[in-house]
């Protein structure tokens, strides 16, 4: 257990999120660990992970219990197809990482001779019931088995015995009625899980407030985010600016889904529901595709106690800049506000939580310590330069055989070699270890360099449209006033 606690704490430190902020993300640590263990154990694709996370939080429309209905039917069909003797056989299928992918499932199951009533049809699994029956594709089944593993193993296997008992019952007569009964049990089970581990009500209030604030608009600008945050600060909720900006990231990603929910609930057409599933999937997949904050986390965890490609401070700066993906590219002003004044606000919140330490609240609220946008831009530029330099070094370490290369490429690699000798960082002395360290993080390094480069460009464009010095001065006044009012009580104390 100790190992787990430490690694969760490390993770939070890495993401720069305090526990309270994580709770305000709508889930607790148990839920985060339950999902991550299944995702990593099965090596799920990001799309499948996003689907599973969606099912667990309930972001499925029109009926959030539909995946459990499908799971129960899939298990009934599997019980027939495989001639399972008891629930144990179903658990073995559900926990088998060899069945985590569609092609593996197809290879294993399509060869099995079909029992009466359950079969494969070339595209997937079928459970016949005299009528149209129930069916899913191989990739659908791969997802459902991941969901099965989640319900079996969540809360540290807290319900493993109960659920395996349900599987035992199903196996005694795996027909559509038994599947429907199991589906109800699983739906109740997951609803209870959500109650215990997904505090969504405060999030829902915040999003309702955003919807009310935008008053039917689906698009917004940087100043809308600022104005909304000021309103919330004035009404006493005092949310972090970064937290609010994160809500707008979600709002933007999901805005294409809004407006049609009621008609969807009323729609009887299955096609309409399936269309929605695809859009929900797509809206999350876009965000989940390859988030730089995650690349950063991966880079750090893959570094073999090794070369200091990034110092702690550089890492924190990068995390700060990239956390609001995709705003660092699309809304650089909001990214700057979050990096400058968001940091000030976190400082105030931390001081209030600790009850002391460092500058007092009034002093912090004045934003005297806020970093100017010009300084932040310069830092983003240095980070981009540093990462580009590290990429060149990575290439030099990787490509030893250079005889066949064009002259320019060879010259560039030699320049990188020379540069490498100038780097004074821990772990850069031992070439073999250095090469291993770089090799472990090559791909993520490329991705981080790319995103930091985009940030740099976005900031340059912003600076042309809205000169940074006056923009910072104007914002400083706004934030300082909002902080002074909102934290007046604590500042006076």
């Amino acid at each position, binding site marked *: *257990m100790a*190992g*787990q606690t430490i*690694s969760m704490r490390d993770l939070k430190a890495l993401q720069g999120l305090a526990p309270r902020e994580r709770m305000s*993300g*709508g*889930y607790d640590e148990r839920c*985060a*660990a339950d*999902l*991550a263990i299944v*995702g*990593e*154990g099965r090596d799920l694709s990001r799309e499948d992970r*996003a689907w599973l*996370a*969606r099912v*667990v*939080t309930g*972001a499925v*429309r029109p009926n959030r219990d539909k995946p459990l209905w499908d799971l129960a039917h899939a298990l009934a069909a599997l019980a027939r197809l495989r001639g399972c003797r008891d629930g*144990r056989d179903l658990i*073995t299928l559900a*926990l088998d*990482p060899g069945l985590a992918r569609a092609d593996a499932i197809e290879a294993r199951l399509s060869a099995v001779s079909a029992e009466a009533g359950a079969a494969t049809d070339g595209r997937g699994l079928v459970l016949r019931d005299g009528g149209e029956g129930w069916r899913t594709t191989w990739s659908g089944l791969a997802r459902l088995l991941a969901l099965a*593993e989640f319900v*079996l*193993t969540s809360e*540290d*296997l807290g319900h*493993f*015995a109960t659920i*395996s*008992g349900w599987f035992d019952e199903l196996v005694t007569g795996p027909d559509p009625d038994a599947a429907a009964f199991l589906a109800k049990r699983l739906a109740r089970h997951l609803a209870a899980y959500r109650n215990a581990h997904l505090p*969504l009500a405060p*999030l*829902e*209030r915040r*999003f*309702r407030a*955003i*919807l009310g604030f935008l008053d039917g608009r689906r698009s917004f600008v940087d100043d809308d985010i600022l104005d909304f945050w000021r309103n919330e600060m004035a009404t006493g909720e005092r949310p972090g600016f970064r937290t609010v900006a*994160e*809500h707008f*990231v*979600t*709002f933007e*990603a*999901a805005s294409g*889904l*809004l407006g049609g*929910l009621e008609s969807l*609930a009323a729609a009887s057409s299955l096609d309409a529901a399936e269309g929605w599933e695809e859009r929900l999937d797509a*809206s*999350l997949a876009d*965000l*989940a595709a390859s*988030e730089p*904050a995650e690349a950063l*986390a991966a880079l750090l965890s893959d570094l073999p106690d090794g070369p200091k490609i990034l110092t702690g401070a550089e890492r924190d700066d990068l995390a700060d800049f990239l956390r609001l993906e995709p705003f660092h590219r699309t809304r650089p002003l909001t990214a700057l506000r979050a990096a400058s004044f968001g940091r000030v606000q976190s400082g105030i919140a931390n001081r209030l939580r600790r009850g002391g330490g460092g500058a007092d609240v009034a002093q912090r609220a004045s934003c005297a310590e806020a970093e100017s946008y010009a300084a932040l831009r310069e830092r983003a530029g240095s980070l981009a330069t540093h990462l580009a330099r590290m990429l060149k070094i990575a290439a030099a370490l990787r490509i030893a055989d250079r005889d066949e290369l064009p002259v320019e490429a060879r010259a560039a690699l030699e320049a990188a070699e020379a540069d490498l000798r100038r780097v004074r960082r821990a772990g850069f002395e031992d070439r073999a270890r250095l090469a291993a360290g770089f090799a472990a993080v090559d791909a993520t390094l490329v991705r981080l360099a790319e995103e930091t480069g985009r940030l740099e460009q976005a900031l340059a464009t912003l600076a042309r449209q809205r000169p940074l010095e006056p923009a910072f001065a104007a914002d400083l006044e706004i934030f300082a006033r909002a902080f002074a009012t909102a934290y007046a009580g604590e500042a006076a104390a």
Partner: protein
Amino acid sequence: MSDEGRMLAEIHAARGLMRVSAPARTVGHSALWAHATREPGEPVDFSVVRALRTDLDTAQRYRTMLGAQALAYAPVAAAASDGAIARRRIGAFELEILPADGDAPPLLVLRGTEAKTPRMIEAWLGDEMVRLDLGAPADGTILLALDPAVPDALELGRMLRDPACAVFLL
């Protein structure tokens, strides 16, 4: 009332959950389950065995899996006055060890009123564990000779006499 706020909250939470990486774990669910459902005498995954001995969390998860598929299990036995025990209840079953008699080895006797009879027994004492095939019952009673020439059988007999020994009938 519109469901939009709720859906945004659910999507937001799902996004956040996507960013979390798993806590470091030595043994995954499937490896643990494979160990829990193995046949006696089958080759075992030594990394699992090691983790069961050294990591409380893994051992706990393993016992949960075992308990879920067991026909009956007992974490401890009521101790007899001399500390060692020859007889214990495990759910609906009664387990007794008859001492060696001349050339005949000690005998494990298992009687039950359940319709199903267990196929295997697994005993845990501290960080030791043993799993043995029980064989087919005769007249509802299972008899297993704890042959001193078979190390696992000898071990099982010794462990079962300790009240702190946990027993799973599978």
